[in-house]
């Protein structure tokens, strides 16, 4: 029983309760509570990440509270190599997103309440070792997402975007839920505990024909949540309309829930089906990498460019999973973490620029490096990280993914390399060229850089972490690989009986 994860997940929840109790005109207090809760949560998560012992069997920092005994539902939190980095990344993004919320001036109490609930849900989803709570926390995070986009969102397409994202994500979650319930019933393990189910399935494999209809439910249910092509159009639109913090949290962290579900549940429990579906995934991921990359080239709005590029990056993660090898899947997890930081950073930049210039149209910007040396530098670094510059964690993950995928998918990998190196560079460099380089129009004389250490902190934290993980990838890979190995081994194990 360890209090670590309970406090990481519980602090934002406690913050939410505290915010609820503070009168709404105490705006400073409300913000201070939110900042303090997410900051402490981040510090504890850092400690957890530091203390984590790579290669140790099973889960660490486990805490559990029994809930519904008859159904085997327990609130069980814990981390292994697969999610320890994700939880840590999640807390960093959560703190950064809270820090970037200073732009919200309207109905702050409601906003911070929802933000903290969303953060609780996100961290809970990644820390849960129980399928029920795994799904419950995800829903807990999703509902505030919709409300925040609807109420504090921006742009002409706000209502349409809100509707779109709600529709898609609800549908995705629903399909995944059907798959999960089917899985619960089919395994007969009488437990929601992921470790217990995994052990049970190892001994009693699920028949292949059952796998063959449950796996696609999970794959496409989770896939929709991750904007797998062609179910991706909600993402750029939704993020484009969302308030900065919401976009940072969803694109950065919550979106990885689907990928995490595929890796934690779908692939190890249904290896035969996974193997037969990997070819489909490999081709669909090209839709993300190449097609959405091309769409990103055409965008004039920075928020839509970031949204589409974030969809494109998801393709590389799917490609790593499709390789079903330790190298590729470890690479995929590295990208999940790296992209979380990158997406948060990108949307924070977009938020700052929008706050300063009241526009997201890149054609109207230009030469902003002169007015904003700090943000300008961050933009260059972020865009470079986004097109796979070594030194940032994204490169490590992408390299591993591409190296591993080539063995089974020659042509797909070749096109993915083109997408990652060339198409990615085209739109990222165009963004730099249009926003910070070139002559500066007169009317941006009053646009300001991030002022003071507090406003710079979220950028430094996100970018710094990306850089540290990029230069010392062992910090991640040494933890991840030991947890990926059993998953990959299960996925590549001997065939299950065709019938029960």
């Amino acid at each position: 029983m360890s209090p670590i994860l309970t406090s990481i997940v519980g602090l934002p929840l406690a913050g939410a309760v505290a915010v609820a109790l503070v009168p709404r005109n105490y705006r400073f207090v409300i913000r201070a509570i939110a900042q303090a809760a997410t900051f402490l949560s981040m510090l504890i998560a850092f400690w957890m990440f530091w203390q984590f012992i790579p290669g140790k069997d099973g889960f660490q920092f486990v805490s559990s509270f029994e809930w519904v005994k008859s159904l085997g539902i327990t609130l069980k939190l814990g981390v292994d190599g697969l999610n320890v980095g994700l939880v840590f990344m999640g807390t960093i993004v959560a703190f950064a997103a809270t820090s970037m919320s200073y732009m919200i001036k309207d109905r702050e109490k409601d906003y911070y309440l929802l933000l903290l609930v969303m953060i609780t849900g996100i961290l809970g989803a990644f820390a849960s070792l129980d399928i029920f709570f795994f799904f419950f926390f995800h829903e807990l995070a999703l509902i505030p997402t919709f409300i925040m986009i609807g109420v504090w969102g921006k742009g002409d397409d706000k209502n349409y975007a809100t509707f779109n994202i709600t529709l898609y994500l609800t549908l995705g979650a629903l399909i995944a839920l059907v798959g999960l319930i089917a899985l619960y019933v089919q395994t007969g393990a009488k437990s929601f505990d992921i470790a217990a189910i995994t052990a049970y399935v190892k001994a009693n494999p699920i028949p292949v024909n059952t796998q063959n209809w449950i796996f696609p439910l999970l794959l496409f249910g989770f896939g929709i949540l991750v904007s797998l092509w062609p179910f991706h159009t909600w993402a750029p639109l939704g993020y484009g309309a969302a308030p900065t913090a919401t976009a940072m949290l969803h694109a950065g962290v919550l979106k990885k829930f689907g990928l995490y579900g595929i890796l934690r549940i779908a692939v190890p429990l249904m290896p035969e089906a996974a193997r037969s579906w990997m070819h489909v995934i490999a081709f669909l991921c090209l839709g993300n990498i190449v097609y959405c990359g091309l769409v990103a080239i055409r965008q004039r709005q920075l928020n839509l460019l970031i949204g589409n590029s974030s969809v494109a990056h998801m393709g590389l993660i799917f490609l790593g999973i499709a390789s079903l090898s330790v190298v590729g899947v470890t690479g995929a997890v590295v990208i999940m973490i790296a992209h979380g930081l990158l997406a948060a950073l990108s949307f924070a930049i977009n938020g700052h620029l929008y706050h300063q210039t009241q526009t997201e149209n890149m054609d109207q910007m230009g030469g902003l490096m002169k007015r904003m040396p700090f943000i300008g530098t961050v933009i260059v670094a972020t865009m470079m990280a986004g097109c796979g510059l070594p030194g940032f964690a994204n490169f490590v993950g992408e390299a591993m993914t591409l190296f591993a995928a080539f063995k089974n998918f020659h042509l797909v990998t070749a096109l993915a390399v083109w997408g990652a190196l060339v198409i990615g560079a085209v739109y990222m460099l165009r963004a730099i060229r249009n926003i910070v380089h070139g002559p500066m129009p007169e009317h941006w004389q009053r646009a300001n850089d991030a002022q003071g250490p507090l406003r710079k902190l979220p950028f430094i934290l996100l970018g710094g972490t990306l850089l540290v993980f990029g230069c010392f990838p062992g910090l991640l890979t040494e933890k991840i690989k030991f947890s990926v190995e059993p998953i990959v081994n299960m996925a590549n194990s001997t065939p299950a009986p065709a019938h029960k």
Partner: protein
Amino acid sequence: MGKETLAWLILFLPLAAAGTIALFTRKHPTVSVRLSICAVLASFVLTWAFAGAWNEAGRFSAAAEWISVGNFNIEMGITIDRLSWIMLLIVTGVGSAIHIYSYGYMKEDPAFSRFFASLSLFTFSMLGIVLANNFLQMFVFWELVGLSSYLLIGFWYGKASAADAAKKAFLTNRIGDFGFLLGMIAIWTAVGTVNFEEVRNAITANKGIFGTAASAIGFLIFMGAMGKSAQFPLHVWLPDAMEGPTPVSALIHAATMVAAGVYMLCRVFFIYGANPAWPEWLGVLDGISALQIIAWIGGITALLAALIAVQQNDIKRILAYSTLSQLGYMVMAVGLTGTDAAMYHLGTHAFFKALLFLGAGSVIHAMHHEQDIWTMGALKDKTPLTFWTFLIGTLALAGAPPFAGFYSKDAILAVAFEHAPFSLFPLAVIVAVLTTFYMTRLMLITFFGKERSDAAHHAHESPGVMTGPLVFLAILTVIGGFLGLGNIVNAETEHHAGSWISEAFAPFSHAPMAALSGIAAMLFGAFLAFGLYWNAERDPLPEMARTLSRGMRNRFYFDEFYETLIAGSQGALAKLADMVDRYLIAGLLVRGSSGFVEIGGRALRLVQSGNLQTYTFMLALGVALVLLIVFRTGL
């Protein structure tokens, strides 16, 4: 201090300088410049501690694990052998001279610190390429070099042309990098390692290890060099890169970075030892080896660039095309298996081309940032030191004995004569004629004749901090040839310590045909140029050969052609994808289905209201549905 520490210091001192400047001394330019210069000088001095490396016994290597997952084991390593030691000397030696020169050249720029931080970052990245012991590490630094080049070309980012040039350079390089990365992925998939030594051993043990992919891998790896060393058809970025400050053009876009492609090919030359074979769908290429393609691309680049250089009027662009042409020579030599000749020319070229660029910088400085040679004239008396050093550089580039360029160019001509006497050898000789022609033209117009503008009239010599490096590089250019540089690079031939006089005449006894054609080509080129440009007021060539001249002036319309090509292919695809996304997927499917749901929602609103409720309802409906299925099927 252990030798390993020293080796790591060579690599990391410039990074430390770059980091310190970026984080702490931005506001103190003089501190920044000292840090940057000290770092590169220290690396230069430390390199001498490894002088023993040019014997096989003195080879030094060290490595630290970087990533280790499954069979994906990547090191950050250091290999100092003959090849990398020479390259270390060139990078840190020429680098030091250019760092010092920049102190004078960039003095008035407000972003002085940023300039030196980028320069140090470049030095670090370049040293990383030189020292790398595996493919992926080389790729890491390869990309970082690309970044520093991007930052320095776009140093004056407020100028649209500079910002565009930086972007173009990075993107063109990325096309080459695509092949480079894909090639090393294929190597790893076949061999299971990216370590140079291990791959070399695997190929030695089994020449068929790459199967039918061998030639494709060879070509893909070469694509990296094609981008970095600006070989046809990816050559278009280098002339535009002249938008960067002149010391940057000298260091990065003449002496070192653009030579990295040639260095890389020499470093991984062992992959071309695998049995050549093409996959079935590329059957038309059967019988052509990757090396042949490399040689021809090098040759074509050399010729094409030399032709374009003949009709350029911007002093830096002439030198840029000249660099392209000389890089083409080196690549051609690699393709003809003459890696020693290529490395020899790489070394001497680094000296005299850096010298020429710094000389051009001094001229531009004297002319108050005017770069058109037709506004200059009679500068030899105004800027004597620049003139004499520039003349030395020109003679070396033209291949006049006994300057360094003569020996190295002769080595390449000899290789061409040996392996392709009736195709690439005559082509190389024609390039030599053109080289002398455009350089003589440049000299005559810039330094002789009449003053063509006020700026030329008021020109004055540059300060000592700038002319010092010029003299240093000029000395290297004079003596580099018979310092036995060729023998240091030349790993195969046992060197018998002969007198330096016999050394100086070696080309004539060793390959007389090559040496004599080289000298004849030089004299012929100079003769033509004198005839046309001695005391010329205008360029007579456009009137004499109208179409050819226009083609040369417009760089044979490559940029226009590529623009059309990109717009027609990738641009059109992007447009299509965007339309499909906007109107088909989002428009029809989503709006269609949302219309459907909206009707449902309206119906539901009779009972409940708002999205959240709809959502909950759907959730409940889903659960009910599953339970129904589960119970009905009785599972």
